[in-house]
């Protein structure tokens, strides 16, 4: 008996494709859906690891003195917190979501290079182990901050060849290789494997966003690689590229570093913009406002992101003309970003809202992002930045983006596509509890960082003057709340995956190719490839998205 979906908005509980056996998730599978979930789960594990480091940091900072852990331990904590959160949580989880969703959204059976895909994923736990292993190195893990600025990163007090900084550089290098592999794969897939009828301007915005982000990876990462290689040579071979006492230039490292690491933040946020663009139409039952402009704005952001990096170096010793130039370019990038924000607001306005967990997280993420955008403009203004650079004001700003927008955006995506990925419905009550705890916790944790920075508390400090105690206590309490907030989420994800209610093909009555097949989709996604005949987000109209919806479901298969 074949499983044929008759009506794409039907709530008939279709016989879902047989869910994957758990063993597949520990194997070298080349199925993009398995790899996607592998990325997401591995990343979430490291999210918790990075979170524990954050708990130590906030535990230390709840009192002015450095009395919880030794200063070297604290410095290792903030270094690894940043490193883990970026390279082992944020980049992999976004890769996971892209991996899972892009082929389905463009109507492809898999990525362009499935084996390369698997290799790229398996490098993640490997360099994760390398980084965690640095705890056992002589001198402990890197304590130079996630920027690894020389000369501090070259000091190597233990004198050992294989030291924490060396392992850190190795891990980051492997991360770069993995990311480039992923970027080549995704860009090739999107450019070459869209289903018939899906022109660029019929692609879902998430696909536009992911493509833009991966283009940044391709052209930014190599600059970081170059800088990291030179730093490694300085550290291990005694070259003098960045060592000022040997005639080197430490500021040049900062240029190499930030030439990638600034665009990297757009790698982190663009997929979230994509997620917002996917979710708001579904939960407001309205088309995305200004689709074409939103799509193009992602590319504009890619272009502009390449010419703003010096705003991280306004106090480094850059000349005045350079500061002004990059101030202008940095402020300019607010325009395509603002366009997106207004588009989302216009999408939501006048719609028929449903406040599911996914929608709540998306809304919360949007609000926190707008706040972060405003503090971002403040940071772009050089005179203000001179005051708040390297203070907690910056830490507050980027945590509003990274936690407020990115983490909450990821949660939104996970709730939204959980039924599709697992074939189960999650528990809505736990989801809402998760949202409340997260939203309150995040604001309690990161808002106080702004007054702290304005008052002059530097970042990366294990101890501080007593006048900063008040806001630090609030921030630490917020952090502990955030730690607790992960519990209902973990409970929900695990419990629902095991015994949640079976999910139909399209529980949200959303418009998108991924919703036309079973939950979870069959191994090869489609029996025949979909033929796209409509633009995305056709809410309010009854035009079918594809011309052959009935033929997409794979005939009953046997694993």
């Amino acid at each position: 008996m074949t499983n044929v979906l008759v009506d794409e908005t039907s709530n008939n509980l279709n016989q879902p494709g047989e869910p994957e056996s758990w063993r597949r998730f520990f194997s070298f599978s080349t199925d993009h859906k398995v790899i996607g979930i592998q990325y997401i789960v591995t990343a979430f594990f490291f999210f918790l690891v990075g979170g524990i480091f954050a708990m130590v940091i906030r535990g230390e900072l709840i009192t002015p003195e450095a009395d919880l852990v030794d200063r070297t331990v604290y410095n290792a904590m903030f270094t690894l917190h940043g490193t883990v959160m970026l390279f082992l949580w944020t980049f992999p989880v976004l890769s996971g979501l892209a991996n899972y969703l892009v082929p389905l959204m463009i109507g492809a059976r898999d990525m362009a290079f499935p084996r390369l895909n698997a290799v790229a994923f398996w490098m993640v736990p490997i360099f994760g182990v390398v980084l965690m292993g640095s705890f056992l190195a002589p001198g402990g893990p890197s304590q130079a901050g996630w920027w690894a600025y020389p000369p501090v990163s070259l000091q190597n007090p233990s004198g050992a060849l294989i030291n924490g900084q060396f392992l850190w550089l190795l891990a980051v290098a492997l991360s770069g290789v993995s990311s480039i592999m992923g970027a080549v794969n995704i860009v090739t897939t999107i450019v070459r494997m869209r289903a018939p009828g899906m022109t660029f301007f019929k692609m879902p915005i998430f696909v536009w966003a992911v493509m833009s982000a991966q283009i940044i990876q391709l052209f930014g990462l190599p600059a970081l690689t170059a800088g990291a290689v030179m730093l490694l040579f300085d550290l291990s071979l005694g070259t003098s590229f960045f060592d000022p006492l040997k005639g080197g230039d430490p500021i040049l490292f900062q240029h190499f570093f930030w030439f990638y690491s600034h665009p990297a933040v757009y790698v982190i946020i663009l997929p979230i913009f994509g997620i917002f663009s996917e979710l708001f139409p579904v939960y407001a039952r309205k088309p995305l406002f200004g689709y074409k402009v939103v799509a193009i704005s992602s590319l504009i952001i890619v272009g502009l992101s390449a010419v703003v990096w010096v705003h991280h170096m306004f106090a480094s010793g850059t000349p005045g003309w350079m500061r002004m130039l990059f101030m202008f370019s940095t402020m300019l990038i607010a325009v395509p970003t603002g366009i997106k924000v207004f588009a989302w607001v216009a999408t939501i306005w006048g719609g028929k809202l449903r406040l599911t967990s996914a929608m709540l997280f998306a809304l919360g993420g949007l609000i926190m992002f707008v706040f972060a955008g405003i503090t971002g403009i403040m940071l772009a203004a050089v005179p203000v930045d001179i005051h708040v650079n390297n203070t907690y004001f910056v830490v507050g700003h980027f945590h509003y983006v990274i936690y407020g927008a990115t983490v909450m955006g990821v949660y939104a995506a996970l709730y939204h596509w959980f039924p599709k990925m697992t074939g189960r419905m999650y528990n809505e009550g736990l989801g809402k509890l998760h949202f409340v705890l997260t939203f309150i916790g995040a604001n309690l944790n990161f808002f106080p960082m702004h007054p702290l920075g304005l008052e002059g508390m530097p970042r990366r400090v294990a101890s501080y003057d007593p006048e900063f105690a008040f806001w630090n206590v609030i921030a630490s309490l917020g952090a502990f709340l955030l730690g607790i907030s992960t519990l209902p989420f973990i409970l929900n994800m695990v419990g629902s995956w095991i015994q949640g209610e079976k999910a139909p093909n399209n529980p949200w009555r959303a418009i998108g190719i991924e919703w036309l097949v079973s939950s979870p989709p069959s191994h090869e996604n489609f029996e025949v490839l979909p033929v796209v005949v409509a633009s995305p987000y056709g809410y309010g109209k009854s035009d079918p998205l594809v011309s052959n919806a009935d033929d997409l479901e794979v005939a009953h298969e046997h694993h």
Partner: protein
Amino acid sequence: MKIRTVLILAAVATALAAISFWVGQSAYGWMPPQASAESILVDRLFSFLVTVGTFIFLGVFVTLAYAVLFQQAGRYDSSDGPHIEGNVTLEIVWTAIPLALVLWIAVYSFQIYDQMSILGPMEHVHMGMATAEAAPVVQGSADSDADVPIEVLARQWTWEFRYPGQNVSSTELHLPSNQRATLLLKSEDVIHGFFIPAFRIKQDVIPNEEITFEFTPIREGKYRLRDSQYSGTYFAAMQADVVVESSDAYREWLTSAAKKPPVVAYNEAFEDYRQISEKGGSAGWVTVPPAEPPLVNYSGSPLTRE
């Protein structure tokens, strides 16, 4: 648009503008005291940004809040919302206005930066192009040695200040009020950050370079200098006090300090490290040992908060 809608929008916008202006004014209170001429300029710019930012944030927030509260789907309503794909006029407006706003902010920021002129010429490589050379703010300079820069030496993890004209060294920075301060920043090991929040000034101190740095303190009092560029194990402890005093008090301090025999300065990092070493090692990993505290005429004391 209906006249009623226009009036409601105008009313909401006016209310938001008033709130934004109020928040912008209170932003002055979020900053440390205005102890330098630069701080007045910076705070003005910051207040402006807070006003504009608040307005935008509240605009978005209020719109979304309204939608969330009053535009939820009916419980059993499974129909879609209106099929609105876009509105060209609106899109042009909300591209043009932010663009204009951003340009306004950029130009205003440039003007403030220009007026601040805290930076002297720098040695840093910039491919042969001219730096933005700042013209120092002209004011009546009382001290004859005002043109000899005060040397600021940064090392892991102590600040040392030398007054070459008077042969005075100190771990507490003294400056005369209402006079242009000219400093020469040097680091002996890693990059440090010279940051005095009350003055709103910051400059990274780069080893192998001598960076001229200028600003004008205007308010007597004691302020904090903190290392702002992460510099290793005892980075957080690398702080010093800054005393701004009248011209007379300043000269008095210089003369009396010059007469004092040099003492080993108190240094928190060195003390901590020494105590830990005596106890047989830390609970952490091996660290770069702190540099020997400097021999200075005048040592800032450990607990200096008044």
